[in-house]
């Protein structure tokens, strides 16, 4: 049964949180993915990694209790949970690149039917490119979840047969969470897992990736 309306950002975050296995080591990307942390039930044993060198990161620091030496990848003040550990950048990215993280959650401009990810650069001539750790996460985590709206403001789909924006990684995305549907990207193609406020037929009518 699909809900009768599109998911809010909060509901999308809750959906992603629900799919993260107990005890998993997880990196939440800058921006919307960060909100997934608010929906992880206590006692699941999920351990958050932040690329700037920490495991078992806690929630955002309370106002007045910020520590400038303790921030997340978005440079926001965060906290430390018991059992945390710190390590330097080469070790942190070895952990990412070496396939030790179970899940990372990233935002996206576009995702292709074969799991290509574009999330770092619009390619516009006057844009200043910035990649950060996105490429390392995209190819490093065992499962890559993307969170995004399904359609851009101009109505064009962001889940596409082939990305037109510069790529972040090739064939790396496993699941795409959107306001209108959740998609599994499988070797056999795009599979709609669930829809929200849209029928599968309507969805197929608006997405080239479901018509091939």
């Amino acid at each position, binding site marked *: 049964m699909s809900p009768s309306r599109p998911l809010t950002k909060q509901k999308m975050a809750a959906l992603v949180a629900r799919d993260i296995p107990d005890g998993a080591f997880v990196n939440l990307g800058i921006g919307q993915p960060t909100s997934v942390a608010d929906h992880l039930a206590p006692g699941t044993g999920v351990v958050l990694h*932040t*690329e*700037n*060198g*920490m495991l078992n990161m806690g929630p955002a620091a309370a106002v007045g209790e910020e*520590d*400038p*030496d*303790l*921030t997340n990848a978005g*440079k926001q003040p965060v906290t*430390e949970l018991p059992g945390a550990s*710190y*390590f*330097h*950048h*080469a070790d*942190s*990215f*070895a952990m*990412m*690149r070496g396939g030790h993280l179970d899940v990372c959650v990233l935002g996206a401009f576009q995702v292709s039917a074969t799991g*290509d990810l574009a999330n770092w*650069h619009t390619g516009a001539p*006057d844009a*200043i*490119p*910035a*990649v*950060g*750790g*996105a*490429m*390392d996460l995209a*190819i*490093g985590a065992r499962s890559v979840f993307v969170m995004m709206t399904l359609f851009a403001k101009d109505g064009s789909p962001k889940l596409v047969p082939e990305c037109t924006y*510069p*790529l*972040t*990684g*090739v064939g790396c995305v496993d699941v795409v969470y959107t306001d209108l549907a959740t998609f599994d990207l499988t070797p056999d193609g795009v599979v709609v897992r669930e829809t929200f406020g849209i029928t599968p037929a309507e969805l197929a009518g608006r997405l080239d990736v479901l018509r091939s």
Partner: protein
Amino acid sequence: MSRTRFFDEAGAAVADVADGSTVLVGGFGMAGMPVALIDALIDQGATDLTVVSNNAGNGDTGVAALLAEGRVRKMVCSFPRQHDSWVFDGLYREGKVELELVPQGNLAERMRAAGAGIGAFFCPTGVGTPLAEGKETREIDGRTYVLEHPIRGDVALIGAHRADRMGNLVYRKTARNFGPVMATAATTVVAQVGEVVEVGGLDPEAVVTPSIYVDRVVTV
């Protein structure tokens, strides 16, 4: 006795940075940023610099101030664009500063390679993206890798928490970030620390940067 030299003010510790140097600057945002050392470098006057750092300056101080003075020929970084990176943004749009954009993990690993004597390494990050264009690739065990080369510095400016009188360093929380890697990758390593303790005052099991990597320590 130790080879590491200790300074009370930052100016003397960066006095010999030459024009045209490659300078590795620690920090991730402001955490671990060696602000006093960068200020001293601004006063010191070296120009035509290549600066390697995760970001390209925030606000109007630190690396941003160095950029604003026209002293940086090239930035090597992973994330120049931030809400407060207006100095870099302006110079870049005017074509007044060169940018080598490097995925963050490659930035760290390329400096680690420099420090570890590795000539080059096959890395899976960035394969099939514009940041790997023109670079050699190779398939190994069914996966494609791109060949990445070391990044070496003439000088590293890093921020740490404490030093002992041998030059051993410890860091604090996520301010550790690039400091330990940059300390291995530069000819001359200058650390600003909050405190210097006597030899024996750091736990040998918890030293993060051993004294062998630290040439100069400035207490700020």
